[in-house]
C-alpha cells in the first residue's frame, strides 16, 4: 500500500480541523485552544481511504487515523464505538464520511495491514487510553498507536527496541515500528496470547494466601518462584540496558542524600522508618562510586506480564527518561526499589479489598508474603550472572541502598496519583 504526504488547501485543512476537534472531544481533550494540522499522510487512497494526521492541539501533538467511507455505506464500529464517527470530509474523491479508523471494523484491519505490510483481517480493540490505542490483530499481533506524540523517539519504544536489539528477550518482540519524521507513531509487537498482568498474577497468590490463612510458603499459590523469576528478569533488563545504552557511574552518598531529601519533602511520615535512617546514615559518609545504567524507571508489577515463556516487561514507560525526555541513568537498584515497593502495594491493596471483619490476622500474612517474595526477588536478581558488575563493589552497601531507594520510590508514589 503506497503512502504519500498531502498538501492540503485551506478548505480541506479547515474540514480536517473539524474532524480533529471531534476526535479531541471524543477523547475528552476538547477545548478552545489553537489547532494546527502539522502533517497528513495518505495511507490508503479512495474509498475506503485512510489519512494519518498529526496536529498540534492544546500544546500537545495529537495523532489520529481518519477513515473515509463512501456516504450512505454501512459503517461498523468496533465495540459499539458510535462516537467514532467524526463528521464529513471532502477531497478529490468527493464527499466522505470520516471516522476514527482505529475503531472501524473494516478500516482498522487496513491500518494494521498498511503498517505491517501483510494482510490482516480480524482486529479488535484491546485497550484505549491516553498512552495508546492497542489493537489485537488475528491473535498474533498487537498494534499500539499513540494518540499523543513526543518530539523525537517515543522513550518507551526506544527502550523496547534497543533492548530487543541488545538481546534482552523478556518482552513482546517488536515486529514493526511506525515512525515518521523522527516521531514514533506506533509499534507492532508479537501478541503474547497467554499473558496476564503481573499485578493480577500476584493478586492470585494473595487471594489464595488470604483464603487459606497459612504461611505463604505452604500456600498453594505461593508467589516465590515467580518473584525469583522476576528478579532474574530485572537483572537481565539492566544487563541489556548496559549493552544498549552504556554505563555511567555515580556517588552512592549522593543517592542516599537524594533519597533522604525526597522522603522528607514528599512523605515525611515515611521518613520515620528507623531502617531507612540507618541506611542513609550508612551510605551518606561513603565515597564509593557505583555503576549507573539507563533504568526502566518505574518497573513494578503492573508493568510486567506473565507469559508462557516467563515474565516480560509489558509496559516500557517512562522509558528510562526524565520529565524532559532526556535519558536518565541511575543505579539499577532503583528498579529493584520500584518492584519491591509494588510487592507491598499489591499485598495491601488485596488486603483492603477484603471485608473489614475478615482482615484481623491477615496483616501478618501480608507482611510475610511481602518478606518472602522480597527475598525471592532479590535472590533471583543478585544470582543473575553479571549483575554484580552493575552493583556497588562493596557488597554491604547493596542492602542499605535498596532500603533507601525503595523508600524514595514509596515517597514518590505516595505523592503521585493513587493506583497501581
Amino acid at each position, binding site marked *: 500500500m503506497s503512502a504519500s504526504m498531502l498538501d492540503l488547501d485551506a478548505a480541506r485543512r479547515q474540514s480536517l480541523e473539524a474532524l480533529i476537534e471531534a476526535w479531541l472531544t471524543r477523547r475528552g481533550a476538547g477545548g478552545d485552544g489553537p489547532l494546527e494540522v502539522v502533517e497528513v499522510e495518505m495511507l490508503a487512497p479512495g474509498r475506503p481511504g485512510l489519512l494519518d494526521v498529526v496536529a498540534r492541539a492544546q500544546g500537545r501533538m495529537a495523532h489520529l487515523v481518519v477513515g473515509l467511507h463512501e456516504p450512505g455505506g454501512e459503517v461498523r464500529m*468496533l*465495540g459499539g464505538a458510535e462516537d467514532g464517527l467524526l463528521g464529513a470530509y471532502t477531497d478529490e474523491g468527493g464527499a466522505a464520511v470520516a471516522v476514527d479508523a482505529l475503531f472501524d471494523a473494516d478500516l482498522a484491519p487496513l491500518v494494521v495491514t498498511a503498517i505491517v505490510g501483510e494482510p490482516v483481517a480480524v482486529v479488535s*480493540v484491546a485497550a484505549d487510553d491516553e498512552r495508546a490505542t492497542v489493537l489485537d490483530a488475528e491473535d498474533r499481533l498487537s498494534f499500539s498507536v499513540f494518540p499523543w506524540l513526543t518530539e523525537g523517539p517515543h522513550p518507551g519504544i526506544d527502550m523496547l527496541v534497543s533492548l530487543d536489539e541488545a538481546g534482552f528477550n523478556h518482552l513482546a518482540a517488536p515486529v514493526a515500528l511506525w515512525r515518521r519524521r523522527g516521531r514514533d507513531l506506533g509499534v507492532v509487537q508479537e501478541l503474547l496470547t497467554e499473558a496476564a498482568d503481573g499485578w*493480577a498474577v500476584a493478586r*492470585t*497468590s494473595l*487471594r489464595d494466601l488470604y483464603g487459606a490463612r497459612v504461611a505463604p510458603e505452604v500456600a498453594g499459590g505461593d508467589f516465590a518462584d515467580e518473584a525469583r523469576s522476576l528478579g532474574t528478569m530485572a537483572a537481565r533488563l539492566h544487563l541489556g540496558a548496559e549493552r544498549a545504552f552504556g554505563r555511567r557511574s555515580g556517588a552512592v552518598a549522593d543517592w542516599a542524600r537524594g533519597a533522604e531529601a525526597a522522603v522528607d519533602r514528599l512523605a515525611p511520615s515515611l521518613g520515620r522508618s528507623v531502617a531507612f535512617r540507618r541506611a542513609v546514615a550508612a551510605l551518606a559518609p561513603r565515597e564509593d562510586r557505583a555503576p549507573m545504567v539507563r533504568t526502566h524507571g518505574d518497573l513494578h508489577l503492573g508493568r510486567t506480564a*506473565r507469559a508462557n515463556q516467563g515474565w516480560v516487561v509489558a509496559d516500557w514507560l517512562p522509558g528510562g527518561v526524565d520529565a524532559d525526555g532526556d535519558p536518565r541513568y541511575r543505579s539499577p537498584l532503583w528498579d529493584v526499589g520500584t518492584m519491591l515497593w509494588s510487592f507491598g502495594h499489591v499485598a495491601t491493596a488485596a488486603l483492603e479489598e477484603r471485608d473489614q471483619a475478615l482482615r484481623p490476622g491477615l496483616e501478618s500474612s501480608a507482611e510475610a508474603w511481602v518478606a518472602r517474595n522480597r527475598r525471592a526477588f532479590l535472590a533471583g536478581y543478585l544470582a543473575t550472572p553479571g549483575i554484580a558488575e552493575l552493583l556497588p563493589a562493596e557488597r554491604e552497601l547493596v542492602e542499605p541502598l535498596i532500603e533507601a531507594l525503595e523508600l524514595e520510590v514509596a515517597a514518590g508514589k505516595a505523592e503521585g496519583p493513587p493506583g497501581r
Partner: protein
Amino acid sequence: MSTPRLPLPSRHPVVVRPWYQHAVFYEVLLRGFYDANNDGIGDIRGLHEKLDYLQWLGVDAVWLLPFYPSPMRDGGYDISDFFNVAADYGTLGDLTRLLDDAHHRGIRFVADLVVNHTSDAHPWFVESRSSRDNPKRDWYVWNDDDQRWPEARIVFSDVERSNWTWDDTRQQYYWHRFYSHQPDLNYENPEVAEATIEVVKFWLEIGFDGFRLDAAPYLFQRDGTAGEHLPETHEFIKRLRKEMDASHPGRVLLAEANGWPADVADYFGDGEECHLCFHFPLMPRLYMAVRKEQRYPITEILSQTPELPEGCQWAIFLRNHDELTLEQVSDEERDYLFSEYAKDERMKRHMGIGRRLAPLLDGDRRLAELLYALILSLPGSPVIYYGDELLMGDNIYLGDRDSVRTPMQWSPDRNGGFSKADFAQLYLPPVMDAVYGADAVNVEAQSRNPGSFLHWLRRMLVQRRAMPVLGVGRMEPVSCPNPSVLAYVRSGDVADAPSTIAGPWGPTRSPTPFGGPAFGHAPPAPSVVPVSGADQGTAGRRSQAVLCVHNLSRFAQPAELSLARWAGSMPVEVLGRVPFPVISDVPYTIALGPYGFLWFELTDPAEETIR
C-alpha cells in the same frame, strides 16, 4: 460487528480420523477389577462380566495391564512367559472370548507389553545366565564389571543402587533399568528383536487392537549416553510398526516414554512409529495449576509440545497404576508438588506420589470434575484409571505402588463386591476407610444416583463423543487477562458425531440403556465385518468449534475472553444446550464458579436449528 465468522462448511472431503484419535481409554488392572471365580484375584472372566459396565460408561478402548505369567514382583511387569495368560487370571480361551465380545460391543483392547525386560524367572534369562556359551548367552546385557554406562540414571533410585547386578552363576553383571529382578533384553542381538516381533504377532492373532509399549525409551544402550531415546530404539519401533501394519493393519502402538514433549514426539517419528504417546509432563502440571490457581504450568508445557504427525495422538491422563510421576518437573516443582500433594512421607513412591485422584484432591468433586474436563478437552485421547470414575480412594500403607491398585469397589457388599473370597484371600485389602471405603464409594450406589460422579463422567463421555473436534481439532489459545482462567477453542472439520461407531467389527456401539438391573445384557452381536482401523461414521461433515473455559481457582472468577476471531457466532453451552449472547469484537465476559468450567459450541446464529 455482526458478520458471522464461523468457518464455512468444508468443501473438501472430511478426513475420517482413526479411532484412537478420539477414543477414551480405560485402564484396567486385571487382578483388581472383578474376581469371577472367587479366589481373591481379579480375572479375565471377571472383566468379561463387567463389559456391560464399561459399555454403559462409554469407554472406547481398554488398556489391559500385564496379564502374563509372572512372579508378580512388579505388578506383572516382570513377565516370565510372553505367550500365555497367568493361571490366576484364566486361560487364553477366556481371553479370546473376552476380546470377541468386547469387539462386538465396539470396545477395543490394548495390551500392556513389556518389551524392555523380562522377569529373572523367564526361561530366556534362566538359560542366558546359566553359562557364557549357551544359545541365549547374548539375549541379555552382560558385562564383566559394573562401570559401563554410568550416565544412565537409576529409575528406581530409592530401591536400586545400580543398573548392574552381579550374577553368581555366570560370574558377570547383568544390566537392568528397573528392578534387579528385571534384566533388560539385549536388542543388539537380532534374535531378541525377532522374538519380540513374534510375541507381538501372537497377541495380534489373539485379537488385541494394539499394545502399550512399556519402558519404550530404554531398549538400547550406547557408550557416552544416558541410554534413553536412542536412534536404535526408534529404528526398532519403526520395524515393529512396519511388521504390525503389514500383518494386522489398523492396530496401534502406544508408547510409554516418560520425557519432555520434544523428545517423546520422536516416538511418533514421521507417523511411522507409535500411533500414541503418553504426554507425561502435562499431568503433574495439571495438579500444579490448580494449586497455584494459575494456567501457566499448563500453557507453558502445551506451548512446548510439538505438532503431531498425521495420524498420531497424545494420550493424556490424570492418574494411572504407577506413582504420579514427577520425573518431568524441575526440582523446585517437585518439592512444590510433594508439599501440596504428599504431606505424609508415606505418600511418596519412587520419584512421585502414590495416591489416587480423589485423595490427591482432598475429595473435592468440583476439582475432580475440572481436571476431567481438562483431559477431555485438551488435545489428546484421555485415559481413565479404573476406579477413578467413582473417585475411589487409596491405601498409602500398602507397599510400592499397591496403594493405588486396590480392588475395584462394585458394591457395599463383602470385599466391596469385588470377590466373594475370604477377606484374607484377596490379593490386596480393599479400601475400607469411612470416606473412600466401599460402603461410601461403589459402582452400585453411584449408578443408582443420577447426581453421582459416575453419572456425571458418563454424561461427559457422551458429550465428548458428540464433539469429535475435542479429539482431533486444532487448539487455539484464547487470551484472558485473568491468570486463573484457561480458555481455548478446539476447531476443525469433523464428521458428524455418529450415534454408532463402526470399528473393524461393524457398527455395534449403542449406549446400553440404564435403569433397572445394572448394566443389563449386551445387545446381540452383529456379524464380524473387518474393515479398517478408522471410524467411518455415517454422517455428514461440518466445521465444529468448541470454546472451553476453565476456572483453575477455588474462588469464582470472571473471564474476559478475546474472541474477536469468532465475532458473530453464538456460544451454546454444550451440556444444557443453552444459547449465550452472540460474540462481538469486544471481550466476551462470563463468570465461572469455583473450579467451574463451561464448554460452548460456537454456532452460527443464523442457523434455524442449533446443533
